[in-house]
């Protein structure tokens, strides 16, 4: 456990709170470490000291740990692959290059199996998603207390919030899902035109032939509701699936970590459990990264598919 004075609930809550920098509204009552209350005279951008403060910041706040780790890991991915691409030779691939080529080949095959249209964006996007999400998920395998404790030691603040797995933050997963959603709409409109896209939303799956055109007055609203829900459900399910899996995994690691502070025996049990769960989690993190990539590709393929051509 991070510090002895905490209850289990506090420990868990502390682990689930992001490092938040945001705007507190004017007139907000803050309580500092000594218990003194003071009122903010004007809206201020500041670090949140408690979960409540983070919550009260509302939308105008940013999770520094999520952003930091995700950008850092994204840079790591970009750097490693860029270096590999720079150094790559046509000759026999060796060491890191062959590993990189293995991943690229795997992604390329997976994407070309699903996506049959011409688009130079989709395959690199698949690679980026796969590697980036995998790296972010991989942070889950680092024992839960290590990095937060290190951060507390560095800052000297025993209540320093530090969540190291970006994919356990719904902002990160939904943020990526939103990006996928925007690309989906962009490619839908690009491929089918605005009218084609609207037509897809309104005249599908039910559409009466010309003779019974008056049925369409009823069918179009039904179609619109169905298709819009289906459209919106894609990014939300995409983001929440990754978030849910990683959050649950993180939660179990935290619960196992609670055992360490009870006594020696349970500590040993906890160690074994943590190892077991980590081994199992290796499967989960790769699978979730893969699923995110595949679903993104599938959605892109759907955006490119023209229903009119099929009929």
């Amino acid at each position, binding site marked *: 456990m991070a510090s002895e004075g905490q209850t289990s609930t506090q420990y868990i809550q502390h682990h*689930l709170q*992001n490092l*938040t920098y*945001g705007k507190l509204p004017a007139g907000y009552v803050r309580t500092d470490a000594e218990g003194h209350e003071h009122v903010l005279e004007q809206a201020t951008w500041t670090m949140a000291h408690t979960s409540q403060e*983070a*919550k009260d*910041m*509302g*939308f*105008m*706040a*940013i*999770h520094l740990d*999520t*952003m930091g780790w*995700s*950008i850092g890991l*994204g840079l790591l*991915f*970009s750097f490693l*692959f*860029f270096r*590999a*691409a*720079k150094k*790559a*030779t*046509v*000759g026999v*691939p060796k060491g890191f290059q062959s590993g*990189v*080529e293995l991943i*690229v*080949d795997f992604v*390329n095959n997976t994407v070309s199996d699903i996506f049959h249209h011409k688009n*130079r*964006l989709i*395959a*690199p*996007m698949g*690679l*980026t998603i796969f590697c*980036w999400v995998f790296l972010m998920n991989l942070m889950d395998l680092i024992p839960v207390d290590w990095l937060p404790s290190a951060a507390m030691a560095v800052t000297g603040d025993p209540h320093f919030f530090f969540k190291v797995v*970006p994919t356990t*933050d*719904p*902002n*990160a997963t*939904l*943020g*990526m899902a*939103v*990006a996928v959603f*925007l690309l989906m709409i962009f490619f839908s409109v690009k491929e089918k035109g605005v009218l084609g896209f609207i037509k897809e939303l309104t005249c599908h799956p039910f559409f009466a032939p010309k003779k019974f055109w008056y049925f369409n007055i009823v069918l179009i609203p039904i179609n619109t509701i169905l298709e819009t829900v289906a459209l919106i459900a894609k990014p939300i399910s995409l983001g929440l699936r990754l978030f849910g899996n990683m959050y649950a995994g993180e939660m179990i690691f935290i619960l196992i970590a609670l055992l360490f502070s009870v006594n020696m025996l349970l500590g040993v049990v906890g160690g074994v459990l943590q190892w077991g769960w980590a081994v199992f989690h290796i499967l989960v993190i790769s699978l979730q990264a893969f699923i995110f990539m595949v679903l993104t590709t599938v959605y892109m393929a759907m955006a490119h598919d023209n229903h009119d051509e099929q009929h």
Partner: protein
Amino acid sequence: MNINLTLIGQTLTFFVFIWFCMKFVWPALISIMEEREKKIADGLEAADRADKDLELAQKKATEKLHAAKQEAAAIIEQANKRASQIVEEAKGQAVAEGNRLKAAAEAQIEQEVNRAKEELRGKVAALALAGAEKVLGANIDANANSELVNQLAAEL
């Protein structure tokens, strides 16, 4: 677990990384991998072609060897024929030369014989003349009787 600006930040980050990957990572790696794929395919094809070429060359070599053997056999046969022909010719020549030498020797012998005969005849005539002189006791005019003597000598 609050939804806030992080969401937008993450969306932008996502686009930036995808853009970077699309621009600087993916094309370089894919082009190198495709190039290598092509190289390997070319290599395999070349190996196939070399195999075929080898087979063809072996076939050709066998054919050439066969032809050469046949030619050699023909040449040897011809040479043998020529050799026997030469031997025959030499034999013929030797026989002819022999005959010629024999004929020359015979002619010479005959000539010698004839000359000896001539000589002998002359001597006999002289002898006969001397004998007749002695018998007649007088000198016989050699000139007057030469015709007679010569006639005698010719008869011998």
